[in-house]
């Protein structure tokens, strides 16, 4: 009988089920129900209905949160390091290059094709070039990217960029160890104290990670990948191919 009563109890007042159990079991069922009604669901509405309302409200709240989250993500300002941009800010064409300092094809482009593009299109004000860090090969890629930003603080981003690409020694094999990165700064006659302090602080770590996330979001599957006024071009293509793509964009 007691078990039967226990099964019939609704959970509106669980504390009453356990502690003052003896007293409650002696109460008539109608009184228990009335008490549960007072402490549980509002009158005229079943618990099932209330659960359904709360579930629907939860879905609405989640949709609102997702909206806020997406709006925030898209509304955030671009994460480009200020010094990794080259050329006329009002140029008709903007090229974004997603690159990794440890990637051999990126080095091939940076040291072979890019200087010609720089001379023909960037210096003449036709093209604005934005270097984005797709530091996906490993920790040394991220370290190198941060070091370049630190060099940028002293106005030598692009010189350091060239130094890194011309000093590759394989992937994550110590070619871009902290000591090597400091050595590159010294060889470029940077203020080593300021550079070392910047590199040690990890202040550009977030920036590098954000670039990587944005590259993933925009479908960058390999490096180098370029966006010429938003149009995706993949690979270290020869100069003639870039010339064609840039001339088309400039028309």
């Amino acid at each position, binding site marked *: 009988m007691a078990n039967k009563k226990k099964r019939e109890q609704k959970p509106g007042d669980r504390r009453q089920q356990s502690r003052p159990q003896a007293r409650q079991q002696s109460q008539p069922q109608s009184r228990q129900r009335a008490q549960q009604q007072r402490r*549980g669901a509002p009158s005229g509405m079943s618990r099932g209905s209330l659960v359904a309302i709360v579930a629907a409200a939860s879905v609405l709240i989640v949709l609102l949160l997702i909206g806020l*989250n997406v709006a925030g993500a898209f509304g955030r300002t671009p994460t480009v390091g200020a010094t990794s941009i080259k050329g006329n800010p009002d140029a008709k064409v903007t090229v974004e290059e997603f690159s990794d300092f440890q990637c051999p094809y990126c080095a091939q482009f940076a040291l072979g094709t890019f200087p010609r593009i720089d001379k023909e299109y960037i210096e003449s004000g036709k093209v604005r070039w934005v270097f984005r860090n797709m530091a996906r090969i490993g920790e040394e890629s991220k370290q190198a990217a941060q070091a370049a930003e630190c060099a940028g603080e002293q106005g030598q981003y692009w010189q350091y960029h060239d130094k890194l690409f011309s000093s590759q020694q394989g992937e994550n094999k110590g070619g871009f160890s902290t000591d090597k990165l400091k050595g590159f700064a010294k060889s470029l006659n940077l203020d080593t104290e300021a550079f070392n302090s910047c590199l040690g602080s990890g202040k550009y770590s977030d920036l590098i*990670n954000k670039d990587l996330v944005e590259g993933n979001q925009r479908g960058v599957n390999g490096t180098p990948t370029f966006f010429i006024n938003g149009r995706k071009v993949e690979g270290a293509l020869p100069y003639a191919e870039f010339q064609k793509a840039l001339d088309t964009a400039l028309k």
Partner: protein
Amino acid sequence: MSSEPAAVESQALYVLSRAVTPVLSVLGIGVSGYLLWVRLGGSLALCTGVGGCETVNASPYALIGGIPVSLVGVVTYLAILALSLWRGWWGAPWMVSLVIFGIALVGVLFSIYLTYLELYVILAVCPWCVASAVLLVGILADSWRQLEI
């Protein structure tokens, strides 16, 4: 006389059943608290061996209205902990169970969205975030049980 051991057993089960959500909430506070600490510039030591914590935590999706998702997680778990303690040890109206259910449901649905982002947008998986999602599923299941519809 024979009903005494049964009563003790019943009391133990009662206590255990009330402890599920508080225990999961405390674990959740630990997990999201750690992620918040990482977000605020703490060490990355427990993340680097496993993978994408850093990438996920630094992504533009790691904020809701300018507030770190991990902070929202800490507050959510704290709220669930307080409500579940109220329900389990000091007695509380059934509506409190309903509120816990609602919070847990929001948490689980939002975790599904975050897991989708990790897998298909950010392309990096943070094991701590997955752990938090699992804890929320546990809390939701327990809160459903407590509703006893």
